[in-house]
């Protein structure tokens, strides 16, 4: 039977921050509700300062809601045991610089109660997953931004959580590193792990998320399945290969015979600059 307990349930979350004396408190999150079912990849998007990170922190118990409730797999997120099932990668994380990659993962693993062979095996597995086996014994202080994000993702996964929360996982990472992180998110989805990510990089969210929420000035202004939100209902796209001018002319003529139907645009589809960059880099490597 499918699990019907939501992985994340945020109900009417409000978070006010005290400002200087006598001033009105700053409302960072205003009546936000989010429900994420197990196995979903949910993207929370919004401009800087819109309340994305505060929502995540409230979910992790790092800030207490002014009102409303947050729960992870049905457990109140202010309780410590709710964190047994969650892994978190904060924005721009810095880990202990004096530790190596392996030591970092061992430290977080031990905090989650792992030990002995299980811990060693898990560390090995994650280092391979995030492609850091060669840098495993190097001090974190010498890691690049992309490597830091990847070791951060590995520590978030150390206890095999059912939910992973990622705050701007590709912020400041180059396109290759960014692609690696996106691939990792897709791998997590394949494994049935619920992912809750927030970002202001829309293309990234579009590529990996099943559902998205748009938050602006602390309020959720739009939410739903990605396909539903971005598809234009009264338009249909057909992409043809090797279609000559004659065929195109025939299609245009055919369309004109139907009342109400019209061709909006024709032309060659374009790749993205990012895809072009990645293709060129990989060809150069070969």
């Amino acid at each position, binding site marked *: 039977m499918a699990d019907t307990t939501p992985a994340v349930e945020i109900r009417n979350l409000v978070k006010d921050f005290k400002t200087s004396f006598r001033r009105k408190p700053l409302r960072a999150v205003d009546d936000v509700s989010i429900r994420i079912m197990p196995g979903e990849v949910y993207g929370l998007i919004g401009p800087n300062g819109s309340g994305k990170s505060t929502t995540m922190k409230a979910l992790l*118990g790092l800030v207490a809601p002014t009102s409303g409730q947050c729960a992870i797999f049905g457990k109140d997120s202010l309780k410590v045991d709710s*964190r047994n099932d969650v892994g978190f990668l904060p924005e721009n994380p810095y880990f202990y610089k004096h530790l190596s990659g392996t030591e970092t993962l061992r430290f977080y693993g031990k*905090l989650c*109660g792992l030990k002995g062979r299980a811990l060693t095996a898990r560390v090995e597995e994650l280092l391979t*997953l995030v492609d850091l086996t060669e840098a495993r014994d190097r001090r974190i202080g010498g890691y690049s931004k992309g490597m830091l994000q990847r070791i951060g993702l590995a520590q*978030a996964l150390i206890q095999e959580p059912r939910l992973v929360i990622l705050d701007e996982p590709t912020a400041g990472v180059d396109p290759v590193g960014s692609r690696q992180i996106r691939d990792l998110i897709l791998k997590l989805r394949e494994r049935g792990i619920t992912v809750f990510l927030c970002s202001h990089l829309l293309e990234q969210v579009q590529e990996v998320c099943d559902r998205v929420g748009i938050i602006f000035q602390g309020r959720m202004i739009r939410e739903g399945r990605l396909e539903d939100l971005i598809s234009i209902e009264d338009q249909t796209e057909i992409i043809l290969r090797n279609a000559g001018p004659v065929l195109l002319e025939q299609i245009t003529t055919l369309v004109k015979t139907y009342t109400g139907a019209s061709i909006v645009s024709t032309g060659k589809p374009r790749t993205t600059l990012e895809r072009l960059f990645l293709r060129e880099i990989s060809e150069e490597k070969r």
Partner: protein
Amino acid sequence: MNSAAIRIPSKGSHAGRIQIIATHAFTQLARMKVFYFLAIFGVIAIASNFFDLQQYQGPETVGISALTQIKSWSFGTMHIFSVVLSIVATALLLPKDVEDRTLYTILAKPVPRFDYLAGKLLGVMLLIFVSLALMDALMVLVLQVRTSMVVQEQVQMVTSMGWPQNEIDALRRDTALNGPSWSLQGAVFAVFLRSSIIASLALLISTFSTSTLFTTIVSFMVYFIGHFQADARDAYLQSGPAGEGATARFTELVVSLVLPDFQLFNVIDSVIEGQAMPWLVLVKLTLVALYYALFFTLASWFIFSDKEF
């Protein structure tokens, strides 16, 4: 990733997590090259050997000042090291974790905030304990060598003066009291207890402070006030009508419960002078240190448990 992997139970005891955080804090501080200070201590302990203030008042005083000097210099260095380290290291650990956002990743794991605080404090205390143990070992070594030299010198002198054997043995015993002794070990332990109180105090301040500098300055201020607390209390109680009555007594009680009286640790100076430290005094100091360390740690937890990041 092995999708068929068995789910790993995410559990662990409080003691286990505290130990992991404590060990980590110890490693973190040790890798900050804190132990380089021990080299300075070594130089001081050895250099103190060469400063023999001649206060010749008879054969029984020959070389005694050198032994006192070694102890005095060694304890002085231990004192400075333990106080500075307990304040600075504790003041540094928490804000650094917040600034680097490593705290988020730790508290996002199933780690209660008390475990985190207790682990950090125990890590600092472990570092101080190990450092003091190493300094103590070096001091005892230097003192042992110098004491045997002093005894030899005294025995030679009194033998040539024709002292009877029983008096020579008594002199040997008296001089040995100025060398390594259990009281001296008790005094080193008292230095550790004092720094444990200071570290837990710095931990409390760092839970509500906004900067390392503020924590450091306030901790040093409270430490210095702690040396005059008992005198100030006595002066207040003997100041006439203001110091009488239930309110004055209650205020005095609250002050002594909240603010540690570091004059209690002046017993260390007596040990340096060659006096014995009664076991009861050491037990009392241990209980006092335990009380303040627990009080400050619980107060830190009270503030830290509601802190937002």
